């Protein structure tokens, strides 16, 4: 539990949550470990979790309309992925694979996350604000990466 909270504090997505709120989020997070090239989720699959990287790096790969797959970005410790599908209920927009051995991610199931945000609207407000800021940061990053 302490390890998960340590990572949550290191991820900007959870900034502004107090200790009690972080504990509640940590309670619904599960640790998953992957080795290099392991698939975490594939493009177009249903999205039911978001992930926080605790250790290692992941590679985000996108398949274009011609069927070619290309590497889009590497994400490291403290970064979050898979959050879009929790918000819009859509399928995964990219595949994510582990880029290093012993990559550790913490998954948060969408249903449990939504229930927590509804039960504790303080958590809900902070999380929705932070998800918006996180997506804003990612759009700004993309604008630089042209």
């Amino acid at each position, binding site marked *: 539990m302490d390890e998960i909270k340590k990572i949550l504090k290191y991820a900007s997505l959870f900034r502004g949550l107090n200790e009690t709120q972080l504990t509640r989020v940590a309670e619904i997070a599960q640790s998953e470990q992957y080795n290099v090239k392991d698939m975490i989720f594939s493009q177009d699959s249903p999205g039911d979790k978001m992930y926080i990287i605790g250790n290692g790096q992941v590679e985000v790969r996108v398949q274009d309309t011609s069927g070619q797959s290309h590497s889009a970005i590497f994400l*490291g410790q403290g970064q979050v992925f898979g959050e879009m599908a929790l918000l819009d209920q859509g399928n995964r927009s990219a595949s994510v694979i582990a*880029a290093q051995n012993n990559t550790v991610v913490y998954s948060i199931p969408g249903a449990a996350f939504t229930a927590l945000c509804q039960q504790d609207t303080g958590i809900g407000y902070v999380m929705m604000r932070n998800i918006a800021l996180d997506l804003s940061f990612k759009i700004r*990053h993309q604008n*630089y*990466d042209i």
Partner: protein
Amino acid sequence: MVYTVSYVVVGGKKKYPSGMMNQSERPVVGEQVKLGENTFEIVEVKRMLPPSDDFEFLHVTVKPIDEESDS
């Protein structure tokens, strides 16, 4: 302070994928960073967004180490 860093490679994403990660040390020009299997050298660091709740948001430009040694 936690630094949320956006890494972009000189020349754009068609050549090398970019990266994003959080780190406890502020990136410095001249340091090396590994994105996937490739190692890059930091050539520019600038603030992307104002700091918030002990987080600072930075944009970093990097260049491939291999290209430097090739030239």
